[in-house]
């Protein structure tokens, strides 16, 4: 039924009327997952034609393979006590890599923490990864944050922040500025289906719609937030269905399917930049690893469940596709993998020997300049360390020798 009376409302609603007393069903919207590749890496019959060229495909593949190796190796390093903490991307490599591949380099990436593949795709060096994980003086972050909290101004990858969801309205504000700058850039903002419960999610998406910010909200629905299954996280149909509430276009995509992710994000980026509007993308995959190196999933899910999903490997699926395309050679691939393994091992060994940042870095960057009170605290601390060098082995040697040199 149309409008029953003709007062124009300022309430910002579609003003049709009804005489029948009925709820809108909680199931009024149901959003299918967009797919291209089947589990074996074959194109579905009737699938859309891929626009991904060979170069991009191989770069995506190489990135995924690299991250898989890196993750395995760093987890092992954590187990050996060489680093304190680690988080794997396992199971979500396609979602993260292919989405990053659909962007332009000038686009800003706001990640949650499980998106090292996006950073690798941008070209973050193995050394940079290592130095961050070892909190050494070559870490771009100056050794201040826990492992995996990467960031790079040069690569337009915003430094990771542990508090969940905070990057969502930040991405909106950043993208709003990109719109004002008028250079055709946008932002992508990754977050888990768990983080999507935070108030900052609501703030960020609503503001992006209202202020017309070109931002791609990329929800990684991987079934778990630490131990909490998605069924205890929300009752709606995933995250994508929230788009309509914000007046925002949305799409759901199979996150194990690199081709599908790539096409969906490319379309979304186009739309966002052309129209100055946000788009909500939901990727469906499975967090196959433990939440982090501190977590043991056997406390909340079965090995059977995990095994079930282990077979659904995004890298294997994409690899089959590449093989079928004749873009990849199995033998070369094995060789490349071995090489990467060796490079990672070497880099690890180099990186763990690099010193921690100089003591001064404890007080820099709190403000642009070190203010007097912090300078005083630093001086006192230095004197203290000189008095008790054995108690502060990471920094004492350098301070003591510097001080002696100065004398």
């Amino acid at each position, binding site marked *: 039924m149309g409008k029953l009376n003709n007062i124009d409302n300022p309430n910002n609603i579609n003003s049709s009327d009804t005489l029948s007393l009925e709820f809108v069903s909680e199931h009024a919207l149901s959003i299918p997952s967009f797919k291209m590749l089947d589990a074996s890496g074959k194109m579905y019959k009737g699938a859309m034609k891929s626009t991904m060229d060979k170069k991009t495909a191989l770069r995506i593949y190489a990135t995924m393979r690299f991250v898989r190796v890196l993750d395995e190796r760093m987890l092992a390093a954590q187990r050996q006590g060489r680093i304190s903490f680690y988080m794997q991307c396992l199971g979500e490599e396609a979602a993260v890599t292919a989405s990053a591949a659909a962007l332009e380099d000038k686009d800003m990436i706001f990640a949650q923490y499980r998106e090292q593949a996006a950073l690798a795709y941008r070209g973050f060096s193995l050394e940079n990864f290592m130095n961050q994980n070892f909190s050494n003086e070559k870490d771009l972050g100056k050794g201040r944050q826990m492992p995996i909290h990467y960031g790079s101004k040069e690569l337009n990858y915003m430094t990771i922040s542990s508090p969940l969801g905070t990057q969502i*309205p*930040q991405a909106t504000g*950043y993208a709003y500025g990109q719109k004002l700058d008028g250079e055709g850039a946008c932002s992508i903002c990754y977050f888990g289906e768990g983080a999507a419960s935070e108030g*900052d999610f609501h703030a960020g998406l609503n503001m992006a719609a209202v202020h017309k910010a070109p931002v791609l909200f990329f929800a990684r629905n991987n079934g778990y937030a630490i131990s909490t299954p998605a069924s205890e996280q929300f009752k709606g149909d995933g995250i994508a269905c929230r788009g309509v509430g914000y007046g925002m276009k949305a799409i759901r995509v199979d996150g194990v399917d690199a081709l599908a992710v790539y096409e969906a994000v490319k379309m979304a980026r186009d739309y966002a930049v052309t129209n100055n509007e946000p788009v909500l993308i939901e990727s469906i995959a499975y967090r196959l690893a433990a939440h982090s190196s501190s977590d043991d999933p056997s406390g909340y899910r079965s090995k059977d469940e995990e095994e079930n999903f282990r077979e659904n490997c995004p890298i294997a699926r994409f690899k089959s596709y590449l093989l079928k395309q004749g873009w990849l050679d199995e033998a070369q691939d094995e060789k490349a993998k071995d090489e990467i393994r060796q490079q990672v091992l070497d880099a690890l060994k180099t990186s763990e020997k690099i010193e921690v940042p100089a003591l001064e870095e404890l007080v820099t960057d709190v403000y642009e300049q070190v203010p007097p009170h912090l300078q005083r605290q630093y001086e006192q601390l230095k004197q203290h360390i000189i008095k008790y060098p054995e108690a502060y082995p990471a920094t004492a040697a350098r301070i003591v020798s510097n001080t002696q040199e100065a004398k």
Partner: protein
Amino acid sequence: MAKMNMLQAINSALSIAMEENKRSCVFGEDVGHFGGVFRATSGLQEKFGKERVFNTPLVEQGIMGFANGLAALGYTTIAEIQFADYIFPAFDQIVNETAKFRYRSGNEFNVGNLVIRTPYGGGIAGGLYHSQSPEAYFAHTPGLQLVFPRNAYQAKGLLTSCIESNDPVIFFEPKRLYRASVGEVPEEKYSIPLGKAEVVKQGSDISLLAWGAQVEIIEKAAAMAEQEGISCEIIDLRTVLPWDVETVVNSVLKTGRLIVSQEAPVTAGFASEISATIQQECFLHLESPIDRVCGLDTPYPLAHEKEYMADHLKVYEAIKRSVNY
């Protein structure tokens, strides 16, 4: 020079800054066409357009999240929180994000171009939620600057410095004085340095310290005390974080006595920090205990507002107690 009230002075600082720098935005609840519930931003949308001066949805955590993102891109970002009492939904974005942005990234990124403007303080029959002075909640947060103007002239000069500062600032505006504080204010741009307290009046017997609207209170109390021959040195702290220890120490070394007065409840307020630091720095020179004249340790009440407030009579009594110790 022109006569301006504090709102006009603030508006003038904003207008000049936006004029100078195209990459700047002003936003918050109702700040757009309407010009804010106190009208501090009035006329700005007309001058600079809807893209640079705009209303946000009603979500403080979003305003500050958005602001952090925009500032990270290098925009001069001036966000308004309608009342300081409503800054708490944005606490995480300010304390965990704004304050730590530069440090955690090793200076890869920063939000140094961010200014948060917010009206604070009581004495306007605002009850629990239109009266709070929440500076102490932020003062425990390395990375932030907290700035308070005491009058119209200071407001324009300090706000200009805040906007030009490369570190994030919360600019607390004493709403009780928005229209009450009227004075000569240059129409052109000028700035007053951050991080520097001002000795508003020299004196020799006792130092009185406050910030924002409370400076007026200690001035009133000092006038009473001077009648009885007590010479008061009056200091406006102006920047609460990082604060100017040196100026306060020098004053107390001279007078041997200190009273700090703040609007907020006494326990764990910023006056406590000042007292703790000064007793340490001036231990051998103190002739009486450092006293704090503050709000009571209750929520901000309505019917008993007068009784609750740290008024000039309470400060005056404290001066006498200190001098007669």
